């Protein structure tokens, strides 16, 4: 067993992908930044210098402190504090946790729906295929943010207010996920159409393997490369969408702020000169999205056989 994992690692280190990764300093940088932000977000409760949502440790007397290197700053709060005396660095780490969580969950949700529909569409063909693809075309002609806004608006109308606050994160994942499935479905459908006519699929069919098993075990793995690329780029898009919705005030409730919510809150203090309350969460968001985008761009090129 150990030797097998060893050889797998070795295989990975010998692969083209690892080679092209190490040859691109920008990609390595983006990967390091992404990884650092992931770690900071996931382990925020242990790594953050303060617990911004634990009321016992927050002191209103610390409110509106500028970053530590500016006159009047306090070394305890590296990036300053907000209107309630919460440490900005810590709120960013906790906020990134929500942003990344919602982003990942939406991507997985969109991926599951898109891949399933794409497989069905490509494998079955016929009426099922044209219905699904027509639907995809129509949805694609509307911007995703509008669809996400609409779903959120409907949920707000259907659910009572207190219940909505409780379920807001799930509603958001659902809204962003639904607004992003089309790309996956189209790609997987395309790969499926190509794969299903290949001999190995026909061989499996002749052997009596059930269509479901053929799709999942044989066709799907061959369609996964592009799906991963779309997933990475979609993660950046999902994070932006979540931040935008939260900024517009229709995203996560203020009790568990994401980066977008933090920017929204800080925006109110822009004019009174407390720029750090907005700018630092904004910078964190921009860096995170940029790093993920760069990784996605690289992955697209690395997995594209035409460019090898």
């Amino acid at each position, binding site marked *: 067993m150990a030797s097998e994992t060893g050889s797998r690692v070795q295989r990975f280190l010998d692969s083209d992908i690892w080679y092209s990764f190490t040859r691109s300093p920008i990609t390595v940088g983006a990967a390091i930044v992404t990884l650092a932000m992931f770690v900071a977000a996931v382990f925020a409760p242990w790594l953050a210098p303060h617990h911004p949502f634990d009321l016992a440790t927050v002191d209103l007397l610390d409110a509106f402190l500028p970053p530590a290197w500016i006159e009047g700053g306090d070394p305890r709060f590296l990036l300053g504090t907000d209107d309630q005396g919460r440490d900005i660095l810590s709120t960013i780490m906790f906020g990134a946790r929500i942003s990344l969580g919602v982003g990942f969950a939406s991507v997985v949700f969109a991926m599951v729906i898109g891949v399933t529909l794409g497989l069905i569409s490509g494998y079955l063909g016929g009426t099922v295929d044209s219905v699904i693809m*027509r639907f995809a*075309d*129509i949805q*694609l*002609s*509307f*911007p*995703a*943010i*509008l669809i*996400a*806004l*609409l779903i*959120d*608006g*409907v949920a*707000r*109308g*259907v659910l009572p207010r207190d219940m909505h606050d409780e379920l807001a994160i799930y509603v958001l994942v659902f809204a962003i996920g639904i*607004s992003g499935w089309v*790309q996956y479905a*189209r790609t997987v459908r395309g790969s499926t159409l190509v794969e299903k006519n290949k001999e190995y699929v026909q061989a499996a069919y002749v052997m009596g393997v059930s269509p479901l098993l053929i799709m999942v075990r044989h066709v799907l793995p061959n369609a996964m490369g592009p799906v991963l690329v779309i997933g990475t780029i979609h993660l*950046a*898009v999902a994070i*932006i*969408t979540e*931040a*935008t919705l939260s*900024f*517009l*005030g*229709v995203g996560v409730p203020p009790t568990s702020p994401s980066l977008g919510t933090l*920017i929204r809150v800080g*925006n109110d203090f*822009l*004019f009174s*000169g407390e*720029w750090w309350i*907005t*700018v630092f969460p*904004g910078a964190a*968001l*921009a860096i995170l*999205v*940029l790093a993920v*985008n*760069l990784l996605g761009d690289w992955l697209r090129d690395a997995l594209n056989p035409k460019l090898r």
Partner: protein
Amino acid sequence: MIAFIIRRLFQSVLVMLAVGLIAFSLFRYVGDPINNMVGQDTTLEQREQLRERLGLNDPFIVQFARFAANAARGEFGISYRHRRPVDDLIVERLPATLELSLVAAIMALVIGVPMGVYTGLHRDGVLSRIFMAVSLAGVSLPTFLIGILLILLFGVVLQWLPTFGRGEVVSLGWWTTGLLTVGGLKALIMPAFTLALFQMTLIMRLVRAEMLEVLRTDYIKFARARGLTNRAINFGHALKNTLVPVITITGLQLGSIIAFAIITESVFQWPGMGLLFIQAISEVDIPVMAAYLTMIAFFFVVINLIVDLLYYVVDPRLRAGGTAGGRV
């Protein structure tokens, strides 16, 4: 050709019906419309009368038909929050959004196309690399963040430009415009730029890619062999051939500009339809939501239809290609 047009028209009608159904279900089944129209002290009997008078007891299909007929005339009922007819509210807000969107679209074209041509012609130049890096930032920075940073820089630190609202507006009949006053123009700069930036990067990348492709073709080589000037080749032949996709995509993006105006309007408190819509969502003001939704869907359907027909007419090659993806 005619079959194609009929099929597309049929599809458009289908989309509008689907959106109408969503809007209607929102209006009819999300919350009780009666509760939102009357005060606390209305008796059950009065409520029942109102319900009967508004036809809320009729069969679903009759109600939907009535809703669709009203919507086609632009009537969407009375806003729960503003207590005014929704169509009045929208007509009042329409000029602000349209002006912002059009100025943004023009800005994106006027800046994006030359940048694209430049980066296409000098692909390894220093300036090209800077443009490409900036465009990556344009894609990665969320719209609202760009708006906030602009406000911080030009509104708060430098104090050159106003940070919210439309400034002074002039009324021309029912249309109000900010384009005729200095204050109005100054107020327009930042929101329009914010809205334009993403489209600008999109257009730049598109023009660049098209230019690179066209410059490789044989007829450009022949043109060079004939000894035409660079200027005539680059602008007369190459650029002209890249413009078909650019114009169609800009047309398609016009719809998404109006949709993204929701975000920009919210950042700059620009009194347009987007701001109205976002307030309607957070206050569950369903008639406004339904009206905005139907309107924007209509807008999208019309734009898509026109662009599809243009594809068909202008360039048969493009027929096989997919639709252009929007942001997000």
